[in-house]
């Protein structure tokens, strides 16, 4: 079966790279699609309140009041109406691109199912809100929407009398119908807000506001568009005549022509099938690897002091701090909800007991991944660096979602793979450098602002900067640490960054008189045996 995600991911990666070049760090719109969607929602809400003040419900009053704000008060009412329309279009665009991007990156499986699943009704609610808005204008486009929507709904056969009969003649249409419509147009967006709130319930620290500069730019763009091409009506509705040629808003009404070409049953079938497919996607093949579920984080109470750092850092709210159950003199202990755990290992990176310097007691931290344990990480580091020389040997710690480390082929460079870069406790950097395993440590993670595990890059940067516990010790020479946050197609950029970093290491090593790799460890082990 063709994996649709691959070509989509390729497109997104290339677009992302270009957007990275033109937007400041952290502004890439592709990394803020949800936040931009929220921003468009607020623009729609604020402009909608103003439009509502001027709007009048009634078969003739609706059109006249919209014309008043568009023509007589173009400088404010007209601009507000245009903002209302274009920001609504923006919501649809952000929503669709957001869905496609999350799909292409596989961010809909496992514990992410809830966020994906609760996003599906958002699609319907946005469409209902938008279509009911177009209906309210009661111009010829609204008449077309009324005729087609009523026919479509009547197919269900659940209404006592066909809704479409309300639009047979002008005398059949009641002013109260517009009251009902405006009720729908207000209630549905409020319901949408509620569903969006539910949508974010399992997302810790959700980003619902875009970067200020991006918000300002977007608003300026909408304003400029509103002046350049104001939203206008398409002639008053006339039920004695059939609407002819129309300008459709394809963002909302793109599927309406299908209603004419296909039967109502077929369009219902398509809509329901697409909804069910989207909703069921987290459980459809290709399935998540079985080992991932078996590798959820485990707590070792003997080493857990209830410090809460793992719970603070978990991007999925999978760790809760609960009252102590083993009688030790701490108030709390960490408890992992395996249904929410994605095996990212960030908790292990946050655990202060996950330190490779421990030699006298067995290296079992308070929390870790069984199949990517702290002890295994130390062994991997020691094994990987066995062939490096002390002058310029570099060990690269890389995450599984950035450039593929196994394809990195550089002389005197070793690599250690992690589920996420923040799964690396900072003490391992100290360990690698102070024990002479490598002359430099290079950290490679996901693209900045778009970490697969949401906060891996951010947490690691804060730990390096000493702003987040467990922080990297001050004694560790920062000039011996390099980093690059790149998307999965950034292998060549990663190789260049490592080579540059490595080239800068040799003179430092010479001046610092670095000891040969592993010498210190060998001496220490001899000492400890003695």
């Amino acid at each position, binding site marked *: 079966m063709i994996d649709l995600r691959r070509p989509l991911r390729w497109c997104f990666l290339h677009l992302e790279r270009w957007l990275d070049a*033109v937007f400041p760090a952290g502004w890439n719109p592709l990394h803020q699609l949800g936040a931009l969607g929220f921003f468009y929602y607020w623009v729609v809400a604020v402009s909608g309140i103003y439009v509502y003040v001027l709007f009048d419900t009634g078969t003739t009053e609706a059109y006249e009041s919209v014309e008043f704000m568009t023509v007589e008060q173009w400088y404010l009412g007209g601009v507000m109406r245009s903002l209302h329309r274009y920001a609504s279009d923006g919501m649809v665009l952000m929503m669709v691109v957001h869905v496609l991007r999350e799909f292409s990156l596989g961010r809909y499986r496992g514990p992410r199912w809830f966020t994906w699943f609760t996003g599906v009704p958002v699609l319907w609610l946005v469409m209902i809100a938008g279509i009911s808005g177009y209906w309210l204008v009661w111009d010829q486009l609204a008449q077309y929407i009324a005729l087609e929507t009523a026919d479509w709904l009547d197919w269900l056969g659940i209404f006592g009398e066909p809704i479409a*009969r309300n639009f*047979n003649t002008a005398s059949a249409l009641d002013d109260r119908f517009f009251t009902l419509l405006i009720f729908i147009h207000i209630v549905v967006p409020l319901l949408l807000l509620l569903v969006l709130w539910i949508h974010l319930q399992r997302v810790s620290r959700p980003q619902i506001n875009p970067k200020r500069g991006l918000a300002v730019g977007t608003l300026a763009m909408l304003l400029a*568009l509103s002046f350049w091409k104001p939203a206008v009506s398409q002639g008053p509705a006339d039920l004695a*005549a*059939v609407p*002819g040629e129309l*300008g459709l808003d394809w963002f909302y009404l793109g599927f309406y022509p299908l209603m*004419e070409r296909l039967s109502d049953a077929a369009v219902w079938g398509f809509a329901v099938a697409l909804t069910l497919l989207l909703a069921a996607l987290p459980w459809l093949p290709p399935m998540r690897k079985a080992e991932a579920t078996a590798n959820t984080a485990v707590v070792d109470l003997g080493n857990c002091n209830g410090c809460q750092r793992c719970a603070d850092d978990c991007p999925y709210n999978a760790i809760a701090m609960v009252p102590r159950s083993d009688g030790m003199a701490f108030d709390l202990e960490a408890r992992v909800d395996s249904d929410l755990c994605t095996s990212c290992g960030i908790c292990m990176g946050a655990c202060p007991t996950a330190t490779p310097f421990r030699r006298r007691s067995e290296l079992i931290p308070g929390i870790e991944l069984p199949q990517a344990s702290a002890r295994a990480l130390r062994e991997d580091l020691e094994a990987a660096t066995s062939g490096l020389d002390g002058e310029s040997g570099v060990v690269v710690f890389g995450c599984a979602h950035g450039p593929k480390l196994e394809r990195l082929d550089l002389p005197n460079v070793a690599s250690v793979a992690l589920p996420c870069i923040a799964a690396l406790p900072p003490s391992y950097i100290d360990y690698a450098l102070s024990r002479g395993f490598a002359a430099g440590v290079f950290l490679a993670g996901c693209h900045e602002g778009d970490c697969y595990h949401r906060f891996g890059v951010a947490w690691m940067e804060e730990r390096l900067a000493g702003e987040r516990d467990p922080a990297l010790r001050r004694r560790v020479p920062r000039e011996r640490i390099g980093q690059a946050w790149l998307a999965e197609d950034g292998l060549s950029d990663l190789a260049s960054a490592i080579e540059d970093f490595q080239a800068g290491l040799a003179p430092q090593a010479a001046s610092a008189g670095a000891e040969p790799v592993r010498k210190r460890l060998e001496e220490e082990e001899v000492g400890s045996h003695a």
Partner: protein
Amino acid sequence: MPRPLQFLGQGVVYLVIALLFGLFSDWPRFTFFPADQAQIMLSFAHGAQRKGECRKLTAEELDELAPNMRRPEICPRERLPVLVELTLDDQPLYRESLPPSGLSGDGPSQVHRRFVVAPGSHRITVRLRDSARSEGFDYERSETIALRERQNFVIDFRSDRGGFVFM
């Protein structure tokens, strides 16, 4: 990338998005209905007669009912289908037996159909049967109508107004 080029690039991004919104909010235009045609819409909801006759309850049957449930007559719920026929210039355009709506078949029969026809003068005839008769119709109306281009000519049925209503 130099800062001026970055600003230029951002401007291009905003311009492309603005063009997307501006363009696809009303283009390409869509022709819902051809300008040189007219439309006849047959639309009504009408309940046919009941399938069976109403009958008076016997004294024994009345005694079995609670006092507040006693009615002099009992009628079967299910209605007959409505047969409707529409002809244009004596040519058949539509003929259908419309079943009653509702789970028990006791609701009105409904139709809401649109027919695209050439504008101009036409003899429109519409007939309806809502009884148990096997031949002929209970209601009929026939008129010559001059249809304009894009006119929406509605045929409704209102039993309280004596039958078919042309609008």
